[in-house]
């Protein structure tokens, strides 16, 4: 059976690359600290020696729009282009050509259907910054095949927080059952409290610092009961109009299970707080 070598849940700040590669005189004050934290976080994936990455993100109206926006979607392709024109324009992100893993994509799709998750599937998916940002931070060589999974945290009505947890649990059981000697790591990105296009955007901190610290604590302790008792679509909207991306972090905790994280770090930036969480459900790498 396959080995689940690590589960990573991270925020995806699209300006990381730009902020940390700008000339010294143009760098934001936190750029060096940010880079150190990201490189330390990257090591938690590197030591797990993964062969394949199951990547969880959400299309930000790049390929998909409201004429046909999938609730849950998996890519099944030999390769994936990444980064859209308007992401390069706004964030300075480079393009990538990532390898896919059609066998695991197909096995994952069938396993999800068998478990009551009726996924959409794409054979011409282009990857956006919700997956490319964590590639840049956790695997910048982009040298591993990926299985991309997209969720709708963006175009309401949205699935419930519990549905994201249950989906994570389903993905976990499929990885556990996959008849393969390969090591699979799951890397997913979302948000803590976040406001976009509203009155609380681009403040000195995220729109709800108290939520951010509580959310990190829930992830650190694997406290799904605490999350499900407190986190609703309405409570997330109260913390910032784009906070619903937290549900992808719940999904990642679902892959790990209700266990303590092995690694937790965060960084309070302008506009939002970054969070970097890693679980080793099958034990820490030796």
């Amino acid at each position: 059976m396959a080995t689940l070598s690590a589960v990573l849940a991270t925020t995806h700040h699209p300006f990381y690359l730009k902020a940390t590669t700008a000339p010294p005189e143009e760098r934001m004050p936190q750029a060096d600290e940010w880079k150190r934290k990201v490189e330390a976080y990257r090591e938690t994936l590197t030591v797990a020696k993964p062969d394949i990455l199951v990547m969880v993100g959400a299309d930000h109206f790049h390929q998909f729009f409201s004429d046909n926006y999938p609730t849950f979607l998996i890519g099944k392709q030999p390769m994936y282009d990444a980064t859209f024109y308007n992401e390069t324009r706004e964030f300075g992100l480079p393009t990538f050509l990532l390898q896919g893993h059609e066998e695991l994509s197909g096995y994952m799709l069938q396993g999800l259907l068998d478990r009551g998750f009726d996924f959409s599937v794409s054979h011409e998916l282009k990857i956006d910054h919700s997956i490319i940002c964590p590639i840049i931070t956790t695997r910048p060589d982009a040298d591993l095949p990926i299985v991309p999974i997209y969720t709708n945290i963006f175009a309401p009505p949205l699935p419930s927080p519990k549905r994201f947890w249950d989906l994570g649990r389903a993905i976990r059981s499929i990885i556990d059952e996959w008849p393969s000697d390969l090591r699979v790591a799951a890397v997913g990105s979302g948000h803590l409290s976040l406001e976009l296009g509203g009155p609380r955007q681009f403040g000195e901190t995220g729109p709800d610092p108290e939520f951010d610290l509580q959310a990190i604590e829930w992830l650190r302790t694997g406290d799904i009961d605490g999350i499900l008792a407190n986190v609703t679509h309405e409570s997330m909207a109260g913390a910032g109009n784009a906070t619903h991306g937290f549900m992808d972090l719940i999904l990642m905790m679902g892959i790990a299970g209700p266990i303590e994280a092995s690694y937790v770090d965060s960084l309070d930036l302008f506009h939002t707080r970054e969070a970097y969480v890693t679980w080793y459900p099958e034990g820490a790498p030796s």
Partner: protein
Amino acid sequence: MSIYYVNKFLFQVDGDPELLARYKADPAELVAWWETERGPWLNRVERTTWLGFTETERRALVGHDYVTLFELGAHFFLSLTIFIALYDADYAARSGPLSFQREYAANLAHWMGKEYPSVAL
């Protein structure tokens, strides 16, 4: 209400540098052209026959009026992205980084502490 069509406009124009340049240079021309010539098409052959803007929506798009778009329920991400594309560089050169984004937030300050208009369709 045809806020779906407003979102479609923002989505398509933001993703196309030529349309974006036209939206910056002559918004009335681009909005009028898009509403009838580009927006209705599902692909090169098939078209939707019944979509259009209300007068309020048309005026907000022509006026780059992100406050009204917010209040009409246009998707916050689409609005923010396209107006950053139109204004961020000019503002940053004049008043420093993030000055446009902060003015945008300030212009919506009357929504602070209130439930925002829904972006659900």
